[in-house]
């Protein structure tokens, strides 16, 4: 039983590397299930109000720029690819490659937040931020306020997750440079990858639900 404890990558309370890897992986998925519930509450609130005030949601959606939304989708999917490649580099024990892919992910993450802040600034200039400067001249103004509240809470929570993700990368980079991860032990990289992919999935749903409602030509506002 004691032969395996000679492996520095294996912590003593696990039988073998496979068990250690699976325990970390399962714990991360339990955390992600909690994250699904957290965002699920927001999405279900969105669904109820969209069902009640569809016309206002269509009008609100037409105020969101598809170009920036689609570009951000592309940026985030690209960052999901780079983080998947980072995990693969870790699996293969290629530290230099791992470092480069994490930096690429970070650059794309910052680009996403930059585009998001352009959009937020644009909303501010048009007086579309509920609670700050909401000025909308329409009989549906109240319902539009609900749409924009969902827009800011959902994209804001998503952006907060991105910021936390970038923080995690800042925490991982010195460890990568120190050579803390090997082909036998890279669970922090793997779990960070899972977290980043989850944030990508949230955006995959946010984009059509917020930006792409009622864009058909026959809907003339």
């Amino acid at each position, binding site marked *: 039983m004691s032969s395996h404890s000679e492996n520095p990558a294996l912590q003593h309370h696990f039988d073998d590397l496979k068990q250690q890897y699976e325990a970390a992986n399962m714990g991360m998925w339990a955390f992600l299930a909690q994250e699904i519930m957290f965002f699920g509450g927001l999405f279900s609130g969105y669904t109820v109000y969209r069902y009640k005030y569809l016309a206002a949601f269509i009008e609100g959606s037409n105020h969101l720029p598809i170009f920036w939304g689609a570009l951000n989708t592309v940026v985030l999917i690209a960052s999901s690819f780079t983080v998947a490649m980072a995990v693969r580099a870790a699996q293969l024990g290629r530290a230099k490659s791992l470092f480069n892919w994490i930096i690429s992910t970070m650059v794309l993450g910052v680009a996403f937040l930059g585009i998001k802040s352009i959009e937020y600034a644009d909303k501010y200039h048009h007086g579309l931020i509920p609670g700050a400067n909401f000025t909308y001249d329409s009989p549906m103004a109240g319902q539009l306020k609900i749409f924009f509240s969902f827009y800011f809470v959902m994209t804001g929570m998503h952006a907060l997750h991105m910021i936390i993700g970038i923080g995690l990368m800042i925490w991982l980079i010195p460890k990568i440079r120190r050579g803390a991860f090997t082909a036998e032990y890279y669970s922090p990289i793997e779990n960070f990858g899972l977290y980043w992919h989850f944030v990508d999935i949230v955006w995959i749903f946010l984009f059509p639900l917020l930006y792409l409602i009622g864009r*058909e030509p026959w809907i003339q506002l």
Partner: protein
Amino acid sequence: MDSTVEHSSPNHGGDHEGPHIAPMRMYVAIVGLLFLMTAITVCAAFVELGAFGTPVALAIAVFKASMVVLFFMHVRYNTPLMWVFAGAGFFWLLIMFSLTMQDYMTRDWETPAPIEFLDLL
């Protein structure tokens, strides 16, 4: 890998111990597919699909999310236990959406006359 650990899982093919390492071309193929589906969902939004617009947009989003979960998040190559863990959250989401909307979508329904029902007895 000259590990002392014995091969115990049929999930891990090949001659290495540890998780499945997918070839790079798989990741490139998946990311290409995701870009393509993004373009399709943007185009579909401008097509007159009537009541099918939202289901189409959601179907594309579910497809994209499935690709990310199965291939980028490695669930495809993972153990059955991890399939259960990954699926549990999404399954819970379905329950929440169906029960919530079952309430809100039926609130405007005509209330049945209880007297007529009692007359049948």
